[in-house]
């Protein structure tokens, strides 16, 4: 480490002196330095001492740590789902083992052996890495490049905020997303969702959610539907993306959307128990990386809660709001004889297992920047996210899943919630005095 320290200290004058060679790009130098070393203004010589140095870097690292279980599961399960789909197509006689197209990593490390029963764990992980790594790299690469550029222009330090967003983005897009679309989405969200508002800590909307919303509305064919949730190595003609040609399977919520009274039963029995409760919970299902395994999300939630980085109020309120709405809305609809939808026949706790709600409420809604700052505000915010998610799932025929839109909507109203909580507080105190 001393070697690195010396190297960094030696380089500093190249960047930090007024007329030095690389003075213009000093934010990049600083970013590299804080990436390697902790800042050393830990405690003053006298006066107030900082006892627990929770800086942005540590907060962000805790979140990244919390996301690691989800990411590891995605490396594994992306491969599992891929080979399961391939095996199914081969079993149906729609595909021969010789037709299998290998990807870039499989080209380097050897093609999987499809002739044996069950593909080896190594091949599974190789496929997972093959799809997930480029997504992580593009998400970080494009986002950090834009962020660095903005920091150089504005002569500010690069902050750690994007390290979390970049990882979140990789976890909320399907593994089959074409990389150029992802790059456009990231560029849109970082420039228009974050940098124009003043960079880290000032954005109104969660940048990772903005990426997903942008892709969802700009490229709906690659972000929704029945074919995109299992990644492959081919792009069928005219369809961008890394898909398995000829494979199609509705997600749990899409299935429920079209179901009637038998929604719960259909979910449990569809395709030999593909969406059984155990599979939904442990994550043996297709989907975006983060929403697969609820167990991994709960592990992440535990990390966020123990380190105190994520707000427990938002999480608890969100779950209560969702369960409450899932319980009340069908009763209200039944009572007023409104047309019932499949989602209304699902048990409330099954709604919790389906789709990306748990991931959203744990990782996206707790974003301290785009959520309200007051404690009462956090309760209101979380509750409403749960309620709107259920409303979209149950009464909006256009989308099967509402987590993303509910969180975006409440992001827009978070400052309003704060305003009214604060002014109510002021009124109460004025009355008291």
């Amino acid at each position, binding site marked *: 480490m001393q070697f690195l320290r010396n190297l960094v200290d030696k380089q500093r004058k190249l960047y930090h002196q007024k007329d030095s060679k690389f003075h213009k790009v000093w934010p990049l130098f600083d970013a590299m330095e804080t990436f390697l070393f902790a800042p050393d203004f830990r405690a003053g010589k006298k006066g107030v001492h900082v006892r627990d140095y929770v800086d942005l870097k540590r907060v962000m690292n805790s979140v990244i740590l919390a996301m690691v279980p989800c990411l590891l599961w995605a490396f594994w399960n992306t491969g599992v789902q891929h080979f399961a789909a391939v095996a199914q197509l081969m079993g149906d006689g729609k595909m021969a083992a010789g037709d299998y197209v290998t990807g870039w990593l499989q080209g380097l490390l050897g093609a999987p052996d499809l002739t044996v029963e069950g593909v080896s764990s190594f091949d599974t992980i190789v496929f997972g890495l093959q799809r997930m790594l480029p997504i992580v790299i593009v998400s970080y690469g494009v986002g950090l490049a834009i962020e660095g550029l903005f920091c150089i222009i*504005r002569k*500010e330090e690069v902050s750690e905020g994007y390290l979390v967003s970049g990882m979140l983005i990789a976890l909320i897009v399907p593994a089959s997303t074409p990389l150029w679309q992802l790059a456009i989405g990231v560029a849109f969200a970082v420039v*228009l*969702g974050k*940098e*124009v*508002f*003043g*960079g880290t800590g*000032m954005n*109104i*909307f969660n940048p990772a959610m*903005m990426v997903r*919303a942008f892709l969802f*509305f700009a490229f709906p064919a690659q972000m929704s539907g029945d074919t995109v949730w299992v990644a492959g190595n081919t792009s069928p003609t005219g369809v961008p993306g890394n898909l398995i040609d000829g494979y199609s399977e509705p997600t749990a919520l899409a299935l429920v959307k079209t179901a009637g009274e038998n929604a719960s039963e259909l979910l449990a029995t569809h395709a030999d128990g593909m969406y059984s409760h155990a599979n939904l919970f442990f994550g043996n299902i297709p989907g975006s990386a983060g929403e697969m395994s609820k167990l991994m999300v709960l592990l992440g939630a535990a990390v966020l809660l123990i380190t105190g980085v994520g707000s427990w109020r938002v999480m608890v309120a969100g779950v209560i709001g969702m369960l409450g709405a899932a319980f009340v809305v069908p009763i209200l609809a039944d009572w*007023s*004889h*409104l*047309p019932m939808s499949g989602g209304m026949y699902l048990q409330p706790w099954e709604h919790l297992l389906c789709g990306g709600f748990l991931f959203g409420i744990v990782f996206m809604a707790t974003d301290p920047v785009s959520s309200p700052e007051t404690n009462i505000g956090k309760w209101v915010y979380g509750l409403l996210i749960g309620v*709107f998610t259920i409303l*979209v799932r149950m*009464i*909006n*025929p*256009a*989308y099967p899943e*509402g987590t993303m*839109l*509910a969180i*975006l*909507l409440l*992001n*827009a*109203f978070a*400052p*309003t919630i*704060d*305003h009214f909580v604060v002014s109510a507080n002021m009124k109460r105190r004025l009355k008291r005095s």
Partner: protein
Amino acid sequence: MISETILTSFDCASLNWALSAVPQDGSPEEGVSLLGIALRAIFVENILLAFFLGMCSYLAICKRVDSSVGLGIAVIFVLGLTVPLNWVIQTYILAPGALSWAGMPNSDLSYLQFLTFIASIAAAVQVVEMAVDKFSPKLYAALGIFLPLIAVNCAILGSSMFMVERDYTFTQSVVYGLSSGTGWLLAIVSMAAIRWKLRTAHIPGPLKGLGITFITTGLIAMAFMTFSGI
């Protein structure tokens, strides 16, 4: 298409408590529940975020939450007043054949729609402003300054035009006017709170003020797409 969806999803006889007030006079949208109209006007087709009407006063006033609440309430008030008023004018004077009560069954004055609506809105707002000033100075202090500002607002005229286009009945147009204003209030209040939060943000120079407001409005509109399709 959205309108068809909303018709089918809310067009159910059982919402009688909301439906009972709808006069069954055989208009094309007969039986559309008032609740459906209200939800559609507030969320699905928010007059500001879906049609981008009423932008000028929205951009001018959305700096403070308190004043935008005031303006929003004024908009609700004026819309609730002028949309039904214009409904009366449209039905009994302007629409083709509307003058049959005066013995002119072949009349068609609908080409005067713009002029008449603008004039009637301005006149109504002026009269109300004077009346409020006279009878309730307190309300005038809260609302009064906003009234002339929104008399020439396109959201007000737009709502009247939509009312004509969608063949609302009188009750429906009252509900539509009020809820259209409520949607506008929601949008401007959320924008005002966001701008209050952004007052300390390091926004790039050229985008300060109106620029960032436009961008944020676009993003809020994207968030409101939650409801599209309902």
